[in-house]
């Protein structure tokens, strides 16, 4: 792909599942960032699969401390870099959706509010996949997880997905973007831009989880692309709070195509799908996609 670095800073041989969307997001993020970064990563799939002592997949300086504090650790890194006068090195925080939308929200909010010079990347696979597919605040309406099982009374997640990028925009972040691993050129462009801007920037990348979404390992990109093509996941960037949609799918496809591509939505009735379609339509209207 054009302008894409051939240097792999996230080494192969890590232990993520075949077809893992999140590991792809890290691979592309590092291609875009280059070597002059310090990554502070939250506990999660990507941390566990990339750093089993004495091995590591990280060819950039990397620290993992705990689940809820990637933004706080990255704040410390950022200030230490400032104190040392290392202006060429970027502090980058990395966390999953659980470490961002839920347990890490306080530390992230604090770092955003303080205006720390750092880039925060959330790889969003829409549930706690590392512990075995439990719902998070970022799990979408209707999705099956092990804590939102499909039973006689309740049928999957009954709350809509928490809108973390909107919360980041509300913090006054100079740059917030959403991305998808199915659109790596767009993703890398956004990462590069986010890293070049001083202050706390935020990129939220949707990345399917093969076991969690109940898909085949060779369908990851296809499913991620469907999320965008149906309008279920909107790609945009917000500079200074002003939202600009970066990809508008022509002839937007019905959300049923996206939902039916995944086992986690298998239980949905036509009525459920119609209700989700309505919400997606409203979302697309809001972003001016249609």
């Amino acid at each position: 792909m054009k302008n894409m670095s051939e240097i792999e800073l996230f080494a192969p041989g890590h232990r993520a599942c075949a077809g893992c969307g999140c590991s792809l997001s890290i691979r592309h993020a590092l291609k875009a960032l280059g070597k002059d970064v310090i990554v502070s990563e939250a506990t999660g799939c990507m941390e566990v699969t990339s750093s089993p002592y004495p091995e590591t997949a990280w060819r950039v300086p990397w620290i993992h401390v705990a689940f809820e504090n990637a933004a706080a650790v990255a704040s410390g890194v950022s200030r230490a870099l400032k104190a040392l006068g290392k202006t060429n090195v970027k502090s980058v925080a990395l966390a999953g959706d659980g470490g961002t939308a839920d347990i890490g929200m306080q530390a992230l909010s604090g770092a955003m509010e303080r205006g720390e010079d750092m880039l925060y990347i959330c790889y969003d696979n829409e549930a706690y996949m590392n512990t075995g597919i439990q719902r998070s605040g970022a799990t979408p309406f209707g999705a099956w997880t092990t804590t939102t099982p499909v039973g006689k009374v309740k049928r999957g997640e009954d709350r809509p997905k928490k809108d973390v990028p909107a919360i980041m925009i509300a913090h006054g972040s100079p740059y917030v973007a959403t991305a998808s691993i199915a659109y790596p050129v767009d993703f890398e462009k956004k990462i590069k831009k986010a890293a070049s801007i001083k202050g706390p920037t935020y990129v939220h990348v949707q990345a399917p989880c093969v076991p969690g979404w109940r898909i085949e390992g060779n369908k990851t990109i296809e499913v991620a692309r469907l999320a965008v093509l149906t309008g279920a996941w909107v790609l945009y960037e917000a500079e200074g709070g002003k939202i600009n949609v970066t990809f508008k799918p022509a002839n937007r496809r019905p959300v049923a195509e996206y939902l039916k591509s995944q086992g986690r939505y298998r239980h949905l009735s036509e009525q459920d799908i119609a209700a989700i379609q309505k919400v997606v339509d409203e979302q697309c209207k809001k972003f001016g996609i249609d």
Partner: protein
Amino acid sequence: MKQVMDGNEAAALAAKLARVKVISAYPITPQTTVVEKLADYVSNGDLDAEFIKVESEHSAMSACIGAAATGVRTFTATSSQGLMLMSEMLYAAAGLRLPIVMTNANRSLSAPLSIWCDQQDSMAVRDSGWIQFYCENNQEILDTTLQAFKISQELLLPVMVCYDGYILSHTVEPVDCPEQTEVDAFLPKHNYPYSLDPEKPVSMGAVGVPEYYMEFRYLLQKAVRNSKSKIIEVDREFKKRFGRGYGIMEKYHSDDAEVIMLTMGSLSSSAKDLVDLLRKRGEKVGLVKLKSFRPFPNEEIVSALSHAKAVAVLEKDISLGHAGGLYLDTAASFVNIEHTPLMINFICGLGGRDVTSSQLEQAVREAKNAAETGKVGERVRWLGLQEKLVEEASG
């Protein structure tokens, strides 16, 4: 030069004299004026440091970890609930072998809410892998914190300097403040050998599978246990340079004492007064003031106490469901030791309850009585408890 200052200012001044580069802290009573003082230093340009005004103590320690790993001298301060909130990160800081110095103004724990002094907070995190010192007065706070920076960076271990909330944090005393040039000569430039650096990337905080985890823990235990000699060495060097030293413990008229009080922190001053009083009356009473609780100096404790007939372990903490932490560790030190004194644990001063000289004297009398009769009776006793209130509450 002598200046009059409270304990919190002594802690803040030590951080300034150590030329810390990143401070990450959150206000909490009674530590708050440490944060305020540091903010003043930074705002006035007296201290060239980044001050991260975090949104919680958990983030305070997390940011310290990030900064220390990037290779700068790092400081934070807290108390009580704040220490509890950051406790998860205390284990991480020690496990990552990061040089971080923290002062803790000792305060009780909720519930019920209490902002007043005891040592339940730091006692609760004794197992975290931090070196833990307890100070008797404001001079000792300043001196110990300066020593802590040196010990921490030389051993790659985090160090916690504890002092009693209000009793020291908010009480002014004359403190001999060393000159910056003297401190610079004592404390070499910060140099962390494994810092996060794109030129030589390292991975920190890996997953320790069962094939490796125990060795990491063993090595950490070894490092904290072996820190004793470095602590003594740094204290000696400090004494040589500044004329003040504290050792790993202080023995006060204890060598020939029949009854010995064992204390940590500001209680030691009151206990010294009592020793003076009782010595004047011809009673063979002494004191051992423990400064280093982690590492726990078992051998020194045994050698300081084994000749006594009875030891009164006085402490402002309790491991609920058992006894005080100082007592438990002291008692454990005497396992398989031939000459073991009788030991009674006195729980006192919880939640800011005054520990009066008459309470201390009562403890000495009870210990003496146990020695004379050979009967210990209740091993764990509470001093200054309002029995009537307890009875009423118990219905």
